[in-house]
């Protein structure tokens, strides 16, 4: 039986792992390579790195981090943030990441999904989508970009379906309303996207307690749950999260 994945997310700025609320007030919390290795040993099923470094010339720092992470951890990881061209995708994949995630740039240029999937396969191309609750949209959610600061005219469900048809192999779905609140994932949003799409959905934004993770993986129908603050700030360990899920009948990988 395919198990539900616990995915640890590391936001990286200027070569350091950072944590903010609603993409603001960031503080450095450690070295991404060391943290990745620690989470690997704790049994994280997958890791996600988002490069939130603003300037283009720092891109090399991220590639170096990807290369060092790939030498030390033997579970899959993806890299996102500022991926605008197929060449950016190639650089990240050749440095050792399994998957590359596109978000705002894919909204501006959906062809990057198609080109990426044609070159590297759908399994390598992840759509990151930030959704904001908005009753005026057909699905009830609007796509926002640039870390939630800029609204688009796209409906979240319609965009997710389009990205899937263009070749995205997975969706990391982040609720802007829930992000950073630690009050739980947006179950309704996750369930809608996961039920309507054929590709796996990774739920993101809002994890604070163990039952939040359980709910999004069961009621929310997510294939994987993304955690950040919950584990970075020392409140919970990966084994605690997985033990809790196992005790409630959620299939997770325990033999690491």
């Amino acid at each position, binding site marked *: 039986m395919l*198990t539900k994945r616990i995915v640890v997310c590391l936001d990286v700025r200027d070569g350091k792992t950072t944590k903010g609320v609603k993409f603001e007030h960031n503080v450095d919390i450690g070295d991404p390579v060391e943290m990745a290795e620690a989470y*690997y040993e704790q049994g994280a099923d997958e890791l996600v790195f988002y490069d939130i470094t603003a300037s283009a010339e720092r891109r090399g720092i991220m590639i170096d981090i990807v290369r060092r992470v790939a030498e030390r951890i*033997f579970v899959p990881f993806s890299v996102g943030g500022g991926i605008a061209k197929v060449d950016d995708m190639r650089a990240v994949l*050749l*440095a050792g990441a399994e998957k590359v995630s596109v978000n705002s740039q894919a909204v501006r240029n959906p062809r990057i999904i198609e080109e990426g999937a044609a070159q590297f396969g*759908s399994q390598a191309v992840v759509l990151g989508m930030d959704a904001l609750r908005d009753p005026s949209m057909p699905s009830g959610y609007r796509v926002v970009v640039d870390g939630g600061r800029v609204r688009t005219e796209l409906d979240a469900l319609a965009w997710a379906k389009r990205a899937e048809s263009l070749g995205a*192999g*997975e969706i990391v779905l982040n609720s802007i309303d829930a992000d950073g609140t630690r009050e739980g994932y947006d179950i309704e949003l996750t369930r809608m996207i996961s039920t309507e799409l054929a590709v*796996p959905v990774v739920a993101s934004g809002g994890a604070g307690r163990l039952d939040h993770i359980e709910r999004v993986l069961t009621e929310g129908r997510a294939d994987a749950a993304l955690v950040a603050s919950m584990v970075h700030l020392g409140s919970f360990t990966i084994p605690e999260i997985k033990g809790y899920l196992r005790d409630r009948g959620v299939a997770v*990988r325990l033999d690491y």
Partner: protein
Amino acid sequence: MVVGLIDYKAGNLGSVENALARLGAATRIVDRPERLAGLDRAIFPGVGEARAAMEALRERGLDRALAALSRSATPLLGICIGCQVLLGRSEERDTECLGIIAGTSRRFPPAPGLKIPQIGWNQVYHRGRHALFRGIPDGASFYFDHSYYPEPASAEAWVAETDYGVRFASALARGSVVAVQFHPEKSGRWGLALLANFLAWRAEAS
């Protein structure tokens, strides 16, 4: 010990290379048949899709080189797409493949609640005994990422199985050739254990 990594297109060999480095094995990139000479064993990794992989192999003459290698005693390990194209045919764009192991790669049939591709960790159950799984518990978790699965023509080739709507062969073997649908290089400790077993395996020519 030098392990050849079959390179048939800008594919990502880095992950397998890193895992082998961790296990202390030296690697050589094999992008043309001559570079297979003198190798102790070879790994045929793969991501992407079957037709592109086959075209790239033919372009480089690696299709025939792999067929010749499979008849020798040099162990060969196929991974993911590298496993699928060892079979005779793939349903992915109806592609004729290498035919080193008789069988077909089939697309997962649609089923309620099952996502395609299968992405994530699933259990691998042994069928019989094979050196590849020495010391690895029955039902250990490995990382999968695929929409097609291998279906060997003969039950003898079927080394391990996994359930995803259908029970499929997640590991296959024929003589000196072994193939796995999962990614051992991304499957944590059991994946590294399987690769170490492959490095230690003394195969016989088929």
